[in-house]
């Protein structure tokens, strides 16, 4: 078996390449940090078995965040047989800087250059053939996502290590050799390790030269200048030389700002950004309420109703009838809840959301919200995971590992778990609120935003202050969405949902049924009555929904949606129900991610506080709506 590691800058198309190379599917998006952990796939080329590892983004061997550390650990601890680097032609020099580091490892390297055409339109013509000749490396051009794979497969077979073309000059080279002598004999990649030590990478220094730091310091001081700057200077010079020889200004570059650039600027503009945000939200609303609503109605009329009627005729009233089509029935609450209520909404929502992901809108939205998020104690790059929470909370929580400051990490993880609706919750919430009208949708999401701001302000005040990290973030280029890719992604997301959720829906329905039969549900309802009907003013059946959130929030939302359609919930109650479910529901995957990213005590504290805050805030909203709802037309 031959092991390949696919590496490259964030958002340079690594997952896309792995998908095309191995025929598997991992989520791809047009923004950085879509992949935050290593994943392994398999393929065979000419009868040989290849293991392909997809990795999170990497800028260089000098580590800038935790997911980069994961990649370097992979490279150093289990050196791959072949490295494939995705070179983003748009960011050619930035990519070359990584190439310089990878060449220093002495592992066979193949370059796959992506976005060549896009970069040419932006004004930079890259000659991939002369790049290959200059570096002595196999280079594949991949003008469109997923192309060039056949050639890559051919080149992988013949790839051999090439010596590093980068010479740091006599003084630095001497320092590198002296540092190599300080390393334990077992050290992988002595030259690269020595450079990292000289560059003072804090994540590397301690382990590598235990007890010999004085000698290392002596080597460092022997240089005329600080080692990190000298090394960076030489590397930059090499990058400039190479870039100068293989790129030229492209002939078809237009002088005027391109549409994508102007659009990106408008998205981030403090004034014009807002109508664009409103447009996208409106688009989601219309799609979910009208398109998904019609789809759901169609499925209910053609599938659910006939089946339920049929079962009703076949199975007489009693235990089995109840088990199948009762209020907590396997068919009604389990299968049809997931298939005919939840699935249509998710398909439409994932489609629109996938479109926004492909365009690259979300990180630009993060810029728009910068000033607000700074007030919530989120000063650095932490705003990106927060925005990604609108996609999937679990993924967003895992992305939070890229945050350096502990305080910000805690705030972000808590805020993601609290009042940010994930895409599934959002789709269903929109459907619930849409049953009453658009102003209920605006009110509920406005109130959720207020909850998030209050929580952020409080956390920022309560947690001990830390030096704020600096905000510096690469933004993905705005691209025209590729409908096929979006459709494919939506398809996979729905497939994953069905595979994961249907068993859970069924088990949850069964558990609720047993709970009901044993009389525990009635007992719980009596106990919770003062909270649910007294404090929140909601029907007592909301207890069923709250219990279902422990399984999956979509199951609960599906139930509430039915209550809304049946007229059990009026408009203001729908707002309360959406706020309660969004803030209260913690899916298992996200809880697991929280325990992984922060200490158990902190995770537990966050979860318990969220349960309390959820009830308190929903109650407060009820009071607000009772006193001022009329004036607001709610």
């Amino acid at each position: 078996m031959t092991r390949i590691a696919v590496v490259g800058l964030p958002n340079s198309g690594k997952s896309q390449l792995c998908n095309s190379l191995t025929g598997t599917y991992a989520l791809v998006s047009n923004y950085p940090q879509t992949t935050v952990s290593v994943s392994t796939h398999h393929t065979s080329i000419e009868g040989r078995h290849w293991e392909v590892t997809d990795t999170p983004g990497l800028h260089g061997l000098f580590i800038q965040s935790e997911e980069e550390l994961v990649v370097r650990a992979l490279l150093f601890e289990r050196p791959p047989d072949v490295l494939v680097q995705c070179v983003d032609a748009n960011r050619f020099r930035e990519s070359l800087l990584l190439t310089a580091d990878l060449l220093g490892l002495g592992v066979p390297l193949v370059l796959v250059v992506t976005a060549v055409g896009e970069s040419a339109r932006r004004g930079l013509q890259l000659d991939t053939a002369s790049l290959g000749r200059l570096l002595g490396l196999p280079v594949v051009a991949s003008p469109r996502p997923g192309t060039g794979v056949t050639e890559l497969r051919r080149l992988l077979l013949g790839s051999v290590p090439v010596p590093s073309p980068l010479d740091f000059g006599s003084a630095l080279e001497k320092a590198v050799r002296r540092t190599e002598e300080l390393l334990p004999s077992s050290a992988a990649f002595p030259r690269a390790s020595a450079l990292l030590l000289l560059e003072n990478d804090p994540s590397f220094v301690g382990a590598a030269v235990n007890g010999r730091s004085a000698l290392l310091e002596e080597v460092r001081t022997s240089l005329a200048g600080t080692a990190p700057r000298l090394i960076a200077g030489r590397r930059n010079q090499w990058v400039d030389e190479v870039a100068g020889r293989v790129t030229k200004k492209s002939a078809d570059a237009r002088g005027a700002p391109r549409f994508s650039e102007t659009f990106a600027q408008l998205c981030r503009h403090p004034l014009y950004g807002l109508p664009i945000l409103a447009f996208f939200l409106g688009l989601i609303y219309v799609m979910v309420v009208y398109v998904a609503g019609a789809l759901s109605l169609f499925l209910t009329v053609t599938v659910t109703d006939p089946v339920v009627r049929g079962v009703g005729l076949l199975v007489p009233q009693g235990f089995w009838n109840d088990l199948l089509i009762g209020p907590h029935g396997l068919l009604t609450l389990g299968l049809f809840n997931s298939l005919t209520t939840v699935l249509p909404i998710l398909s439409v929502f994932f489609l629109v959301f996938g479109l926004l992901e492909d365009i690259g809108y979300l990180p630009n939205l993060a810029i728009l919200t910068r000033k607000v998020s700074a007030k919530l104690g989120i000063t650095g790059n932490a705003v990106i995971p927060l925005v990604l929470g609108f996609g999937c909370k679990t993924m967003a929580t895992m992305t939070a590992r890229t945050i350096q400051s502990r305080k910000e990490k805690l705030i972000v993880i808590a805020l993601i778990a609290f009042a940010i609706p994930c895409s599934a919750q959002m789709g269903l919430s929109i459907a619930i609120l849409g049953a009453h009208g658009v102003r209920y949708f605006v009110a509920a999401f406005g109130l959720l935003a207020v909850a998030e701001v209050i929580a952020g302000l409080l956390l920022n005040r309560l947690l001990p202050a830390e030096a704020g990290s600096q905000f510096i973030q690469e933004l993905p280029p705005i691209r025209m969405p590729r409908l096929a890719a979006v459709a494919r992604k939506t398809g996979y997301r729905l497939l994953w949902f069905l595979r994961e959720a249907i068993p859970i829906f069924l088990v949850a329905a069964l558990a609720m049924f047993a709970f009901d039969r044993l009389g525990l549900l009635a007992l719980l309802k009596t106990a919770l009555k003062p909270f649910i009907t007294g404090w929140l003013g909601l029907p007592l059946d909301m207890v069923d929904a709250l219990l279902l959130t422990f399984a999956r929030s979509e199951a609960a939302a599906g139930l509430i949606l039915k209550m809304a359609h049946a007229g059990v919930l009026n408009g203001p109650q729908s707002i309360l129900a959406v706020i309660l479910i969004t803030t209260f529901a913690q899916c298992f995957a996200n809880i697991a991610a929280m325990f992984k990213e922060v200490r158990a005590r902190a995770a537990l504290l966050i979860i318990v506080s969220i349960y309390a805050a959820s009830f308190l805030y929903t109650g407060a909203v009820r009071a607000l709506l009772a006193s001022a709802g009329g004036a607001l037309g709610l």
Partner: protein
Amino acid sequence: MNGITDREEMLERLWQLGERGAATVEGLRISLKGRFDAADLERLQEDGMVRRDAETLSLTGPGAAHAERLIRAHRIGERLIHDVLGREFESGACEFEHILATEIVDGICTLLGHPRECPHGFAIPQGECCKVSARYVQKIVVPLTELQIGQTARVAWVYTRSDQQLHRLTSLQIRPGSIVKLHQDYPSYVIECDGASIAMDEEVARSINVWLEGASPVREEAPARHGRPNFAKPWWRWRLGGRTRGH
């Protein structure tokens, strides 16, 4: 060798050793290599510049003040060579005349009081600045925050707080010599550099210093007043709620 220059050199080395931890006699000896002279060290102690405690050396108040002046001069000089004459300052092969923009030459000329002859005695052709007898140097390197939106500039130098930050910015190609274009300055700064759009806070933007190249030092376009759009720009470039830009 008991010259002032040697003792000054020793003070500079002591300052540098102090930057990296405690200075010792042995450290000083290694640092100065063959030029170490114990008599110089004793003289510095007599002059009250250096305190010696067994093997440990430290600068006294006056000693530190003197060393600080020297180090400043030294490093400003390096800055000039590094930023103005290109980054190969160690090799000494600076191709002065090929890389200097006219404005920069004028700036140095003004600083030096418009010299007429070179050290070899040849005449220096007069520049615009000499003709108008300019007495003030126009600032030619400014923080990124002072660029106009849409303006392009070359990075002169970047101040970084730590090695990590140096790496972060370098890997994003924000480094001396890079060309950056300012796209937006509110709510965050957004620049384009090496084909990528990069968003950053004002603090980071302030640490990036760029040459004001090509453009005339006197701005033709009046900066937009607070809260009022500049109607001379296309409508999507109107600045809203931004800072008023002093000049």
